[in-house]
């Protein structure tokens, strides 16, 4: 599929949708570097973000990406997790409600353009997972006995705190030589 002529041609309507999709949130707030970074962290908030990758993803310069990341960190939407100041790496604050709101906004933009129901589905999902009685029951739960092993369910915030604590405990123990890390 390297030859352009082998590829199907998009219709005019599809071309318009593509152009619309190239603007963060359909161009509602403009098309600044900051908005392009926000679009990227909203689209996949689970990975580590390194400035160089974001430069490619947002077609932006290094100083502008640096400014955007620092601003988002100051806002509490991102956190610099690198100990090497020369090689910053950021992760997204998954418990931020603004991140959830931005995700829903991204769906709403598509819905308004195409008359779809992405937002409705996401709101239903959010309700089922977070707000409904069943979702609340999962705030923290430890289950054992049904099958081998123990299953622990907890809220995002609890999981984040637990993971941070575990990392600190393991790093401290490793420094003191109390545990050995074994590659598997």
């Amino acid at each position, binding site marked *: 599929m390297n030859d352009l002529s082998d590829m199907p041609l998009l219709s005019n309507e599809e071309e318009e949708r593509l152009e619309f999709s190239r603007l963060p949130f359909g161009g509602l707030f403009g098309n600044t570097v900051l908005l392009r970074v926000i679009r990227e962290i909203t689209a996949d908030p689970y990975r580590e973000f390194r400035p160089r990758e974001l430069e490619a993803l947002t077609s932006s310069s290094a100083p502008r990406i640096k400014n955007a990341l620092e601003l988002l960190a100051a806002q509490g939407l991102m956190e610099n997790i690198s100990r090497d100041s020369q090689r910053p790496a950021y992760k997204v604050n998954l418990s931020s409600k603004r991140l959830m709101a931005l995700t829903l906004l991204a769906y709403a933009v598509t819905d308004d353009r195409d008359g779809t129901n992405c937002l409705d589905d996401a709101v*239903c999902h959010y309700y089922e997972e977070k707000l409904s009685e069943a979702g609340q029951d999962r705030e923290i739960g430890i289950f054992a006995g049904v099958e081998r092993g123990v299953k622990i369910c907890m809220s995002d915030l609890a999981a984040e705190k637990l*993971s941070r604590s575990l990392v600190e405990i393991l790093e401290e123990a490793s420094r003191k030589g109390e545990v050995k890390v074994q590659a598997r």
Partner: protein
Amino acid sequence: MEKRKAYEKEKPCLPDPEENGARFLGWIKKRGFYATLEECEAYCSSIEMDLKDFARNMGRDHIMIGRTSSGIVAVKIMDRKWASKWARDYEYDLPHHSHRMKL
């Protein structure tokens, strides 16, 4: 009017895009189901995924790589319901999935 249910709790239809494919579907869904190939490849390289292989394996009914009249190569999700269900199944549609954190 009958009340809508999110994805009707259906099992997603095959093909299964697998973890990275579902991640890509969640990403492109939040960009409106369309993106240029250049944008997609920049994203896919960051998650070590071969987009063209993925598109070929999923089939043109699900994901299409096409071109505009001006020669821009674009990726379009053809089956949005399929994409949405798998993105949700692998928990890439909403940002609340702490169990995916690496300890």
